[in-house]
C-alpha cells in the first residue's frame, strides 16, 4: 500500500463515523467528511482510472473541481453519469465506478435515481462566492450594513463559517454562472450535507424551509457580487507527467491536512514557488519519505517521470547537468498558482499578466463585481516554467483530460494557427469537463513561447458557464412535463376529452384535431367530418381565435391604418375580412373585424397571432401615434366560440333555440346579431371558413360548454358532427382560403396570394402599403399561390415538397416553388394541394412536377379555389 489513512489529523473528517462504499466492484470504507477521492487514497487506491483518448493509466491528480483524471459514474444512492471523484461527497452506500472522462447515460432512464430539484429565488445586497478566508472576510465586512449577505461555497464543509445574523451561508453550493446585473445561478446539492436545511435571510420571519433530500437551484439577484474563488495550482509539462502518482502539490497537502490521508510513501517535490516547495514539510510531517526536493527556481528540473501502471521513478537534471534517478511513488508538482477566474471572465472581467506571479490577474470588470483574495491575484510569486525542455514532447501532457501534449500544440502551430483560441479548437485543450482549469494558462504560455512571443502575450482561452458540470435536470427544475409551458384549453375542452378527440398543439392551445369514432383511423375521421359539413352540418370549437376589442373615437381611423382594406366605413352590425401586413408588405395575419358600435370593434386574429397582433397594435398606438384615442383589450379568453357550418346550420341554430331572425334576408352573410341562443346571451355572426352556410356563436366563456352540449343535442336530428382542425383545414383549402403561417411564410404579399381585391390603395396610408411598390415586390416571377391537382387523383404530395417545371430527372434541377398544403378532399373525391409557384398566376392549366425520392408526381396547376368557385353555398 502506497497511500493510506494517517493515524491522526484531518480537519474535515470525522473518524468516529465510518462510511461504506463500493468502487469498481470493491467494497471499501471511508469516514464522514471524505470525498470519494480522499477515501480512495485512504484505501491505497491512487490510480485505476484511464485517459479518455489514449487509454493511459491515470490517477487522482487534484483535490477539487479542477480534477482532470479521476472521473466516475455514480449509480447509488443517486445517479450521475460523470463526476470528478474529488467533488463527490462520500455517503454510506455510495456506488461508483471509474469512467474515462466520458459519461454514459443509462439505456433505461427510468432505472436510475436522480435527486429532485427545486428552484428558489434569493435577493440579497451582497453575494460572496467562495467560503475561504477571503470570502468569509468579505462576508463579515459586508455584514452590519443593513443588507442581506449570502455566502456560497462548493465544499460540503466550511471552516469557521460566519455566524452573524445577516449572513446566510450555503455550503455544498456551486455558483454555476454569474450574469449581467448581479444575477447568479447557484446549485446547492443536498447530498453529503447534514443538519437542517432552513434558509433565513436576515429576518426570522422570512425563513425558507428546504426539502432535505432535494437539490436547490438558486436564482440569486445581488446588488454586488464578490468573487473569492481562490486559485488553482498549475502543473509543469514534463515527460510522463500523467502517471498515477504525479499530483499537484497543493492537492497532496490538502489530502494530508483536510482528510488525514497520505497520498504516497516516498515522494519528490518539484516546484517553482515557496508554497509548493513547502509541501515537502507537510509530507514529511505526515511520515512520507521525501526523497528529493527539486527547486525549479534554481534551474533544477524533473525531466522525466516513468513507471508502468503508476509512477515508479523520476529523473532529475541538476544545475550542473548531472542526471539523478529517484524511486518515488509520489511527485508533487507546483508550477505556480492561477487565480480562479472562470466566473470573472465569463461576465466580461479582463485579465492582465503579472510577471512576478507568472500568471493572469483580474483587471477591469463590471462595477457591481469585485474579486478578493487569491482570485484577485494574491498568490505566491513563482518563476515562470511551463514546460521542461528535455524529454519527449509527445509525453508532456498539457490537458490530461483531452490527452493533449506539447507536441499537439506544436503541431497546431505548425499548421499555421497563431491564436490560443484557434489552438483550443484544433486540439480541444480546455474543452473537457474540467474546462481546462489546470491546462488553460500553461497551454496559452506554451503557445506564446513556441511562437517566440512574450509571456502573457495571448492569455488563456475564454471560460463560459456553467462553472462546474450540472445536469439538465437541475437547470430545468420544475419546468418539465406539464409545467414545461402553459397549457391553454377552451371551456369545451372536457367535452372534447370525453369524446375521445385527438388534439394538436396550436401555440399553447390544445385544439381538437379530429374526433375518431370506433377507433377509426384519423384519415377516416377527417373524411367523415368534412362530408358532414359539406352535406349536412358540423360544429367546431373556434374559441381559440384571437379576439381584441378596439375601442375609442379614433378606432376606425386606426384600423384603416392597420388593415389593407377600409374598416372605417363598415356598418355597425357588419363584418369584414381583413389582412394585415408587415411594414415590408408581407402578409402578417388575417381575421375579421366586427363593428359593435360606432367607436367599438371586435377584431379576430389567427390563434397563433393573437398576442403578436395586440402587441403590434400597442406599439403603433404608444410609440408612433400617441395622439390616437384608442384602447385595445384582449378578450380571447372571455368569449367561447362555436362555429356551425353546413347546409343545415340554420336549422341547427334554430333548433338550439334563438330569438334572432335567422332568415336569409334578415340576417345576411357578413353581419352579426346580438341575442340569445339556448337562453344564453350570444352574438351570432355569419362568417364562414368552410364556404358553407355558417353561424359563429360567441358566448361568454362560462356558457361555452353548456351551449356546445345544447348545439350537439339540437343538431343530432340533422346529423351534426363535431369536427377538428384537420377537417377545418381541408374545407378551407378546398375554398382556397389561405392559412397565414402555413401557406404564407413572411415572404408573401397579398398579390402573391391573388388577393389584390383586399388592398385598398384609395383609402390612404396603411402599414406595408409603401412596400407594395418596391421593385422586388412587383417582380412578375414571384411565387404565387396556386392550386395543384395531382394527375393521379390518389397521389398525395407532401407539404413542403419542391416543384419543378420540367421533369428532367437530372440533379440539380431548377426549383420553381413548393407545396404549402396538401389533403385528400372527400368533396372533390381526389387529392389536391395549395402551392407557391413562381409566376403561378400565369401558369394555370400547365403541368408541374413534384420530384420525390420514390417517384415524380405530375400535377396540373389550377386556381387556388377548388370547390364552389362562385360561392353559391354560403347562404344555404
Amino acid at each position, binding site marked *: 500500500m502506497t497511500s493510506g489513512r494517517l493515524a491522526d489529523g484531518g480537519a474535515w473528517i470525522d473518524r468516529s463515523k465510518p462510511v461504506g462504499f463500493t468502487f469498481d466492484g470493491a467494497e471499501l470504507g471511508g469516514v464522514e467528511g471524505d470525498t470519494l477521492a480522499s477515501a480512495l487514497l485512504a484505501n491505497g487506491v491512487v490510480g485505476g482510472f484511464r485517459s479518455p483518448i489514449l487509454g493511459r493509466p491515470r490517477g487522482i491528480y487534484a483535490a477539487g473541481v479542477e480534477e482532470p483524471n479521476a472521473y466516475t459514474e455514480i449509480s447509488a444512492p443517486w445517479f450521475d453519469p460523470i463526476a470528478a471523484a474529488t467533488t463527490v461527497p462520500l455517503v454510506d452506500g455510495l456506488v461508483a465506478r471509474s469512467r474515462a472522462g466520458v459519461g454514459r447515460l443509462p439505456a433505461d432512464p427510468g432505472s436510475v435515481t436522480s435527486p429532485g430539484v427545486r428552484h428558489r429565488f434569493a435577493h440579497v445586497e451582497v453575494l460572496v462566492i467562495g467560503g475561504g478566508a477571503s470570502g468569509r472576510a468579505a462576508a463579515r465586512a459586508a455584514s452590519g450594513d443593513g443588507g442581506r449577505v449570502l455566502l456560497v461555497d462548493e465544499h460540503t464543509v466550511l471552516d469557521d463559517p460566519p455566524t452573524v445574523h445577516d449572513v446566510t451561508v450555503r455550503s455544498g453550493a456551486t455558483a454555476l454562472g454569474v450574469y*449581467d446585473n448581479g444575477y447568479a445561478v447557484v446549485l446547492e446539492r443536498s447530498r453529503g450535507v447534514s443538519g437542517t436545511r432552513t434558509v433565513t435571510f436576515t429576518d426570522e420571519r422570512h425563513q425558507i424551509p428546504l426539502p432535505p433530500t432535494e437539490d436547490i437551484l438558486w436564482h440569486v*439577484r445581488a446588488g454586488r457580487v464578490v468573487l473569492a474563488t481562490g486559485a488553482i495550482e498549475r502543473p509543469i509539462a514534463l515527460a510522463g507527467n500523467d502517471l498515477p502518482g504525479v499530483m499537484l502539490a497543493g492537492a497532496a497537502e490538502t489530502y494530508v491536512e483536510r482528510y488525514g490521508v497520505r497520498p504516497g510513501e516516498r515522494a519528490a517535490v518539484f516546484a517553482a514557488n515557496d508554497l509548493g516547495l513547502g509541501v515537502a514539510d507537510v509530507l514529511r510531517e505526515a511520515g512520507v519519505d521525501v526523497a528529493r526536493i527539486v527547486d525549479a527556481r534554481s534551474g533544477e528540473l524533473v525531466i522525466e517521470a516513468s513507471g508502468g501502471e503508476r509512477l515508479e521513478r523520476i529523473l532529475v537534471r541538476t544545475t550542473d547537468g548531472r542526471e539523478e534517478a529517484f524511486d518515488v511513488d509520489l511527485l508533487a508538482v507546483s508550477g505556480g498558482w492561477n487565480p480562479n477566474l472562470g466566473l470573472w471572465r465569463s461576465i466580461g472581467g479582463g485579465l492582465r499578466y503579472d510577471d512576478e506571479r507568472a500568471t493572469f490577474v483580474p483587471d477591469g470588470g463590471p462595477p457591481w463585481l469585485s474579486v478578493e483574495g487569491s482570485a484577485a491575484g494574491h498568490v505566491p510569486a513563482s518563476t515562470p516554467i511551463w514546460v521542461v525542455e528535455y524529454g519527449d514532447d509527445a509525453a508532456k501532457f498539457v490537458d490530461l483530460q483531452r490527452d493533449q501534449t506539447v507536441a499537439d500544440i506544436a503541431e497546431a502551430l505548425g499548421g499555421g494557427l497563431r491564436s490560443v483560441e484557434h489552438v483550443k479548437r484544433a486540439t480541444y485543450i480546455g474543452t473537457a469537463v474540467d474546462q481546462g482549469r489546470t491546462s488553460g494558462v500553461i497551454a496559452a504560455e506554451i503557445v506564446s513561447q513556441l511562437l517566440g512571443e512574450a509571456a502573457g502575450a495571448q492569455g488563456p482561452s475564454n471560460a463560459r458557464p456553467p462553472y462546474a458540470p450540472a445536469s439538465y435536470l437541475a437547470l430545468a427544475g420544475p419546468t418539465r412535463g406539464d409545467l414545461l409551458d402553459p397549457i391553454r384549453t377552451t371551456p369545451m375542452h372536457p367535452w372534447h376529452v370525453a369524446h375521445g378527440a385527438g388534439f394538436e398543439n396550436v401555440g399553447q392551445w390544445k385544439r381538437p384535431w379530429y374526433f375518431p369514432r370506433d377507433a377509426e383511423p384519423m384519415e377516416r375521421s377527417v373524411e367523415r367530418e368534412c362530408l358532414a359539413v359539406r352535406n349536412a352540418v358540423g360544429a367546431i370549437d373556434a374559441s381559440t381565435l384571437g379576439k381584441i376589442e378596439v375601442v375609442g373615437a379614433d378606432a376606425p381611423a386606426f384600423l384603416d391604418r392597420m388593415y389593407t382594406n377600409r374598416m372605417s366605413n363598415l356598418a355597425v352590425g357588419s363584418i369584414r375580412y381583413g389582412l394585415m401586413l408587415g411594414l415590408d408588405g408581407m402578409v402578417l395575419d388575417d381575421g375579421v373585424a366586427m363593428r359593435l358600435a360606432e367607436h367599438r370593434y371586435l377584431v379576430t386574429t389567427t390563434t397563433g397571432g393573437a398576442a403578436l397582433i395586440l402587441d403590434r397594435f400597442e406599439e403603433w398606438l404608444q*410609440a408612433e401615434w400617441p395622439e390616437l384615442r384608442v384602447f385595445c383589450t384582449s378578450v380571447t379568453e372571455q368569449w367561447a366560440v362555436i362555429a356551425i357550418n353546413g347546409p343545415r346550420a340554420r336549422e341547427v341554430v334554430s333548433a338550439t333555440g334563438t330569438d334572432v331572425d335567422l332568415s336569409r334576408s334578415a340576417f345576411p352573410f357578413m353581419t352579426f346579431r346580438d341575442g340569445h341562443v339556448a337562453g344564453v346571451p350570444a352574438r351570432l355572426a355569419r362568417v364562414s371558413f368552410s364556404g358553407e352556410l355558417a353561424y359563429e356563436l360567441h358566448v361568454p366563456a362560462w356558457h361555452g360548454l353548456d351551449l356546445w352540449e345544447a348545439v350537439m343535442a339540437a343538431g343530432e336530428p340533422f346529423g351534426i358532427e363535431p369536427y377538428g382542425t384537420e377537417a377545418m383545414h381541408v374545407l378551407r383549402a378546398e375554398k382556397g382560403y389561405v392559412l397565414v403561417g402555413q401557406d404564407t411564410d413572411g415572404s408573401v404579399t397579398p398579390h402573391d396570394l391573388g388577393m389584390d381585391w383586399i388592398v385598398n390603395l384609395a383609402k390612404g396610408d396603411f402599414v406595408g402599403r409603401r412596400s407594395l*411598390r418596391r421593385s422586388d415586390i412587383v417582380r412578375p416571377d414571384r411565387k404565387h399561390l396556386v392550386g395543384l391537382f395531382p394527375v393521379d387523383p390518389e397521389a398525395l404530395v407532401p407539404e413542403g415538397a419542391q416543384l419543378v417545371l420540367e421533369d428532367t430527372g437530372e440533379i440539380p434541377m431548377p426549383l420553381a416553388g413548393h407545396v404549402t398544403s396538401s389533403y385528400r378532399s372527400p368533396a372533390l373525391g381526389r387529392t389536391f394541394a395549395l402551392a407557391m409557384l413562381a409566376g403561378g398566376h400565369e401558369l394555370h392549366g400547365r403541368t408541374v412536377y413534384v420530384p420525390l425520392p420514390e417517384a415524380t408526381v405530375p400535377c396540373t396547376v389550377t386556381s387556388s379555389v377548388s370547390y364552389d368557385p362562385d360561392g353559391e353555398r354560403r347562404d344555404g
Partner: protein
Amino acid sequence: MLLVPCPWCGPREAIEFRYGGQAGIAYPDDAEALSDEAWADFLFMRDNPKGAFAERWYHVAGCRRWFDAVRDTVTHAFLPPDRPGRPRR
C-alpha cells in the same frame, strides 16, 4: 440576466420585456412620397454602434408600455430611462 429599467415599474428582469430595436426611427409622415431608396433606408437600415444605443423596449409581461432606453452595447449598462415619445438622443 439584464435588469431593464422600466420607467413605470422600475428595474425588472429582461424576460419580462420584448426588444423593439433601434429607437427614434419615426414612421414617415408621407411614406408614399419616399423614393425606393429612402423607404428601404427606413425599413431596413439600422445603426449598430459600439457604445451608447437608443432602443425601444416593451414591458410585455408587466405594464405593457413601450418605452425608449439607452444602453451601452459594450457594458450592457442602461442610462437613466426616459418616457415614450421623448427618446433620449
